[in-house]
């Protein structure tokens, strides 16, 4: 295994991001931007979920809620005081991060499963709140007119969807670098002790509650960031699309299928499942496509608990020591 330090890893990831950006700009097809935006969004969501779920072992079923909080804070700001999308991303991160902290604080002192149950209920309730909140469109939804182009300082105009794509690509790069940095840090060690044995972690001096709260906050914040540009991407935001089941399911299924112990699992899962779904939604119905994701999730947790990355690692080990 080649060991790369965090600084080098960040540079490499940013370089890969730049290459992807340059390539997309060269191809410059709107449909491709739309499709890859969704995949990048799933990379952010899956990576965010995995920081809590994969590293600490706490399941968040409410990814859709955290995502929607980001999306709806953008809608709110759009009506209340319009600001550029990068600012909206920061606001989304704050709102969802604080929500994650609050949920964690209320439920993480109790049995592990209570957190999962509470996040599951959170989605239903937030949706209820949004449906009843007319300022952000209520059940009818809210229109956000996406400009055709964005004018950069210096008079250069760029395609707006390309701009959104660039933002989401940056978020994906940022999320992956964060996840990988955590993995190699003292915090990452703390996360792993919590996943393995909380009582032993406490006995070794790990402040488990604080470490878990850091995880719920970071994870929530990234989901909020993923949601913040969404209203601009979709143009018309309804509660049912912001709280869509596909977010909750995919952000669990992608890391589980990819592999949960390192940053690469969610990335692999998101790219594979994300592109497969982009393809399948065009060719078969979206319900069938979600059914396949659900079945794959059940199948993988039963048969390949360490996901695709685990399968590959096992194969490599056997290949090296025949």
């Amino acid at each position: 295994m080649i060991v790369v330090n965090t600084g080098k890893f960040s540079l490499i990831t940013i370089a890969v991001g730049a290459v992807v950006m340059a390539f997309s700009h060269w191809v410059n097809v709107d449909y491709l931007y739309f499709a890859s935006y969704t995949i990048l969004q799933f990379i952010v969501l899956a990576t965010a979920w995995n920081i809590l779920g994969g590293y600490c072992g706490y399941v968040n079923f409410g990814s859709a809620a955290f995502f929607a909080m980001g999306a709806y804070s953008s809608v709110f700001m759009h009506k209340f005081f319009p600001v550029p999308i990068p600012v909206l991303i920061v606001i989304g991160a704050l709102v969802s991060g604080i929500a994650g902290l609050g949920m964690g604080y209320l439920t993480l002192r109790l049995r592990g499963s209570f957190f999962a149950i509470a996040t599951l209920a959170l989605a239903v309730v937030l949706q209820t709140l949004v449906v009843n909140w007319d300022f952000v469109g209520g059940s009818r939804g809210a229109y956000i007119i996406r400009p055709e182009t964005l004018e950069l300082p210096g008079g250069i105009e760029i395609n707006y969807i390309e701009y959104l794509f660039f933002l989401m690509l940056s978020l994906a790069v940022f999320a992956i670098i964060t996840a990988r940095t955590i993995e190699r840090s003292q915090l990452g060690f703390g996360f792993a002790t919590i996943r393995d044995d909380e009582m032993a972690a406490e006995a070794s001096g790990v402040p488990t509650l604080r470490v878990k709260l850091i995880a719920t906050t970071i994870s929530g914040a990234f989901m909020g960031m993923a949601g913040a540009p969404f209203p601009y991407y979709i143009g018309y935001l309804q509660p049912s699309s912001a709280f869509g089941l596909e977010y909750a399911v995919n952000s669990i299924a992608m890391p589980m299928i990819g592999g949960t112990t390192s940053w690469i699992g969610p990335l692999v899962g998101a790219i594979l499942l994300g592109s497969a779904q982009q393809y399948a939604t065009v060719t078969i119905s979206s319900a069938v496509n979600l059914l396949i994701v659900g079945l794959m999730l059940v199948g993988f947790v039963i048969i390949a608990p360490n996901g695709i990355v685990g399968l590959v690692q096992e194969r490599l080990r056997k290949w090296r020591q025949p």
Partner: protein
Amino acid sequence: MEISWDLFLNAIAAGLLLGAFYAAVTAGISISFGMLDIVNIAHPAFVILGSYIAYFFNINFGVDPILVSIIALPVFYLLGASVYQVYYLSFEKRGQDSLRGLAFFFGLLFVTEVGLILVFGVDYRYVEAAYIGPSVHIGIVDFPLRMLVPCLAALALFGALQLFVTRTFMGRAIMAVSQDQLALQLMAVDPIKIKRIAFGVSIATCAVAGALLIIIQPVEPSVGREYIGRIFAICVLGGLGSMPGTLIAAVLLGVVESLTATFYGPSWAPAVSFGFLLLTLAFRPAGLFGR
């Protein structure tokens, strides 16, 4: 503030009826989550499956939905027992029941819901029976039979379960498994077998709860999600696995939801259960009657 007594009393009555029904929906989760510590978040999906089975036989063959559900009991029991067997072999036995077990049930929830969408579509479905429509009036309070009949059936189911866990050998063994697996092994009882039976019973209750649900309200596949917060709120508030506690907590939630729906509008009702759940977790995680 002027409160209309008429509205208020009717809301309380409706809440009591609704609460009894909630108790029936929660009874199963009180067994699986409360007693066996299996976080079966797919429970509501099985309830909805029960609704659609009642719907299918009612619409196509004109069978009474409650009768359908009673006939379906053994099928649901077997379904539950086999789900437990898979869960046990794949997660409990390997000691991976927390993360992957939860993901497994989440997958089941999802597959069931999408499966129902593919077969029946996303439209609301309802059943037909003589008792849907008429009401019994007592003074100014009105008891729609559509609610009263499910309430009575729910209480019957709940009573039967209470008798089962307190009076039969198997029921007591289930209670024991939640407390001390070793003691059971010393009595030469296989805890896995007990858990399989208990989980089967817990899923069997979904057949009845589902039929009652579709009598009370029209059902579409995603309705189940509203019940996740509800049943876990009730189960925790009732003190995890205590049948009488579950009943009281269910009635309490039913009444509060019904009052909320009457005075603030039905679209707020789902938020009540979540508020209940969070408040319970924050202040009384051992439940209303816990120490």
